[in-house]
């Protein structure tokens, strides 16, 4: 036990004295968030409208659909209102059951209070469409658009991005940190020197893993802290849950790192392998952009990437306030990956 503690202390000291490692794991991810904070992906040129149609008459909806300025989705009333509150919609139009093309019903339009420009434009477009419906029938009474402001939590791109970047940095420091670290220890004969001592080798691995998980915990705290302080992150989740999910992901990527260090003989061999594994995930696991735009088969495959589970889990907890039971699919996904990668790591890892 004493040796474990001393080894942990030593490896922690080594880590914090390694300036490059601190920069890679702590500052670089924050810098990326900083860069992306200048990019405005939100609401470019169109108004997102949720439509809840209680009536069998679909004339209005089919009239609205082709309008380019609107991005229309249909759904249940409670769902659409939730999305409005989350900031996924700029407005939600509720068409009552009694609605008929020719008539003078009252339609309710819920507006996202923080997006006045979009909602003004959207309201005008809807009003014109309603008028057009009736106009065809001459001088009949008009439909009335009854508007209501809703206070939404308007999630920004940063809210989407930051948990993703956190997941990414957990992956990078796990895979690259361990793989490079151990290959260097091996190549320079340091592991061999350790083998000449009566130390239990598992104590050494234990110290390495716990140190890195501790670093991971710090990563979570720093990212969330800096996100809330500097980047207006709408963090409503539990830090503890973030750390738990982060740790599970961390174990997967540490195991991959150990496996790679076992397969490779030098740094030159580690780099391409590590990139081969991490790059596709970085691009396709929804770190920077939502996976919803991926073609069907790619979407289906990326569903099973460990980074997808980690990013989705962290994101749901951070910005949707999800509890652990809300992210059970992600937890199961990560658990399965832990079993797979740990098995490979144990098989592949070599002391010399």
């Amino acid at each position, binding site marked *: 036990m*004493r*040796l474990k503690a*001393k080894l942990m202390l030593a490896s922690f000291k080594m880590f914090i004295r390694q300036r490059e490692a601190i920069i890679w794991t702590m500052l670089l991810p924050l810098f990326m968030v900083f860069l992306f904070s200048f990019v405005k992906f939100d609401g470019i040129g169109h108004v997102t409208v949720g439509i809840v149609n209680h009536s069998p008459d679909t004339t209005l909806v089919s009239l609205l659909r082709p309008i380019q300025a609107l991005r229309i989705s249909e759904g249940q009333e409670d769902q659409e209102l939730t999305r409005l509150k989350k900031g996924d919609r700029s407005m939600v139009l509720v068409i009552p059951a009694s609605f008929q093309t020719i008539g003078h019903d009252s339609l309710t339009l819920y507006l996202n209070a923080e997006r006045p420009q979009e909602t003004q434009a959207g309201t005008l477009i809807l009003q014109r469409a309603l008028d057009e419906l009736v106009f065809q029938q001459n001088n009949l009474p008009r439909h009335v658009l009854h508007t209501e402001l809703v206070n939404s939590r308007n999630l920004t791109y940063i809210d989407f991005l930051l948990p993703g970047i956190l997941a990414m940095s957990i992956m990078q420091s796990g895979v690259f940190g361990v793989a490079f670290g151990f290959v260097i220890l091996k190549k320079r004969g*340091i592991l061999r020197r350790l*083998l000449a*001592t009566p130390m239990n080798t598992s104590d050494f691995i234990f110290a390495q893993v716990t140190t890195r998980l501790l670093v991971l915990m710090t990563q979570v705290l720093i990212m969330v802290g800096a996100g809330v302080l500097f980047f207006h992150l709408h963090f409503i989740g539990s830090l503890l849950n973030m750390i738990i999910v982060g740790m599970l992901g961390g174990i997967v990527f540490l195991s991959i790192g150990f496996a790679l260090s076992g397969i490779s003989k030098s740094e030159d061999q580690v780099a391409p392998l590590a990139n081969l594994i991490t790059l596709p995930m970085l691009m396709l696991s929804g770190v920077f952009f939502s996976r919803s735009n991926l073609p069907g088969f790619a979407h289906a495959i990326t569903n099973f990437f460990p980074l997808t589970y980690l990013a989705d889990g962290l994101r749901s907890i951070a910005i949707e306030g999800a509890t652990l039971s809300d992210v059970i699919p992600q937890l199961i996904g990560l658990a399965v990956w832990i079993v797979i990668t740990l098995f490979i790591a144990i098989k592949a890892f070599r002391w010399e």
Partner: protein
Amino acid sequence: MNSVLEVSNLKKRYGDLVAVDGISFNVTRGEVFGILGPNGAGKTTTLEMIETLRPLDSGQVLLDGIDVQREPQKVKRLIGVQLQSSSFFDKLTLTELLLLFGEMYGRQVDATALLDEAELRDKAKSYVVQLSGGQKQRFSIAAALVNDPVILFLDEPTTGLDPQARRHLWGVIRRIRSEGKTIVITTHYMEEAEELCDRVAIMDSGRIVANAPPQELVRQLLAKGFKKERVERLASLEDVFLDLTGHSLREE
């Protein structure tokens, strides 16, 4: 029983190459035992098998009466190991490294005393990367002493050092010897073996071709009627070098 190390019929082969071909020797308590030989003679492989770092193909190694194959952990506690080109963690100071290595043996060591032994006290707060070649080797020896070993294994400790640093290291080794430690050292410098060793085994192609005190081996050779072609010079180029550059160390 005065033998601290008994090696009998030790064998190791890598594929078709027989690295160590059934060698036997004993090392007496308190002596400096040299294993000499050209590169590739099997010196390092022999040491690594004794040090538990490499499995034996056949034969037996008894260290202080303990079988290396059967109880490697026990043997590790008894021996001090300086590996060829061994290196240490980057970002720990010499003191921290010695304390950590001590912990690996379950000991709380006096790092300063160990650094004194290797004449590195003023480098206590340095990292290994900041040391010169000779200082690195001396530190490596200090690290091999953390467990107060019964026997110390030094694998080519002076390879690549300049004459001053080599002589300085000899001084450190002699002092450790004078404190009663048994030392097994490999080298391919003959003058080093003559300076340090009480007894040497000369290895070639995995076999021991001679095993005796250096003076004894020289006497045997002369008895066979050997004569050097040139008249013995009273000084060598190394003597000239040391006369011109002095014995003091050139490391910072």
